[in-house]
């Protein structure tokens, strides 16, 4: 047994589980990378730790400082855990349309929540955080969407872990979000095994952002552009709430892995790829567990009702 000095030492080195019983093609293995095993419960622990370490190293983050960050939940929760350990104040700009569990988890870790309008979704939270950071120059704004330490965390840890555990990997599938996971892992895999194909899944965006005034208010994460996302990706597909939930339920019912809806979306994408290729080994990312979505009723009752309630919240 190893005794760890800090909960932060538990970030990363996540396990991979074979869930090929869910593969529609007997010649294609599907493997789940359980980022839900990170201490604050999501893939974002790696990103938060990496961004904070980088800011401490360059001297912009010093003891007692206040951080501000827009997050629909997981990045905020990860930052909140680390800020507790490292002694920073944290303010999270959180869209109103997230699950109650995400809000409660942030509060449990002592983060201050600044609410942003549900109708503007994550774009609105990003805009508000940028404005607040401009107005309060003494606050530290890590800005996950543009911070190189975000994809770098995945280039340095998630990617190497996957290739070491699954040298036979042929395809990698993950949710888009800030694009940090896809850019970091994708770049690492292609540099070390160029034939690996990298696929993104994303939720349908349109109906959730009624507050969008024009398409010019749209948003492409700077991380995606800096890391050449348009050239790196081999495909990008929308997975709807119904299909995401259907696969998240199959994951828990048939393999016992309790994952969030975005993991269901990634698995749906993996299954689509599996059906289109002759043979191969697909690794997909389980970004978080299902715990933070229980209040939506997504995992019990009629699938359609669960999908309807998921459509009202941000789950990526």
């Amino acid at each position, binding site marked *: 047994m190893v005794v760890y000095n800090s909960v932060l030492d538990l970030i990363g080195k996540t396990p991979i589980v074979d869930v090929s019983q869910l593969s529609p093609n007997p010649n294609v293995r599907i493997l789940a990378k359980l980022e839900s095993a990170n201490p604050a419960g999501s893939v974002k622990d790696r990103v938060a730790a990496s961004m904070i370490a980088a800011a401490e190293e360059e001297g912009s983050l010093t003891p007692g400082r206040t951080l501000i960050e827009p997050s629909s939940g997981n990045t905020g929760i990860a930052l909140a855990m680390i800020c507790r350990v490292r002694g920073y104040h944290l303010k999270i700009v959180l869209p109103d349309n997230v699950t109650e569990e995400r809000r409660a988890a942030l509060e449990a870790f002592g983060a201050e929540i600044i609410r942003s309008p549900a109708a503007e979704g994550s774009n609105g939270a990003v805009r508000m955080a940028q404005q607040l950071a401009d107005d309060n120059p003494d606050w530290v704004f890590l800005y996950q*969407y543009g911070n190189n330490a975000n994809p770098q965390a995945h280039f340095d840890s998630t990617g190497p872990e996957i290739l070491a555990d699954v040298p036979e990997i042929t395809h990698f599938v993950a949710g888009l979000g800030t694009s940090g996971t896809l850019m970091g892992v994708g770049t690492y895999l292609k540099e070390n095994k160029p034939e690996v194909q990298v696929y993104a899944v994303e939720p349908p965006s349109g109906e959730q952002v009624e507050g969008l005034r024009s*398409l010019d*208010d*749209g*948003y492409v994460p700077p991380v995606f552009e800096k890391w050449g996302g348009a050239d790196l990706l081999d495909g990008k597909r929308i997975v709807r709430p119904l299909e995401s939930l259907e696969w998240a339920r199959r994951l828990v019912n048939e393999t016992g892995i309790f994952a969030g809806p975005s993991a269901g979306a990634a698995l749906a994408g993996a299954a689509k790829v599996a059906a289109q290729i002759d043979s191969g080994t697909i690794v997909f990312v389980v970004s978080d567990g299902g715990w933070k979505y229980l209040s939506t009723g997504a995992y019990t009752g009629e699938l359609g009702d669960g999908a309807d309630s998921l459509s009202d919240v941000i789950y990526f």
Partner: protein
Amino acid sequence: MSQISVRLPTVLRPAAGGNTTVDVDGSSVGQVVNSLIAEYPSLESNLVDDEGAIRKFVNVYVNDEDIRYLQKLETPVSEGDEVAILPAVAGG
């Protein structure tokens, strides 16, 4: 030429007579976009840039796949395919 149903985002519906979906002719995404603009000229500046490429904050999907990773505007479409236009938004 096939008739293709194009789904528009909320923000573009006022420029398209308030319609959620519009049926237009085309055998490629480029032709579909041109037909759409011919019918509703004020959509042009929203959808394409000066060089005729799809604008940065606009994502176009055929059967839920982003055409940037297919054959872009040359992506073929046929009867029954669904084209959707959606704004790029943040996640995370």
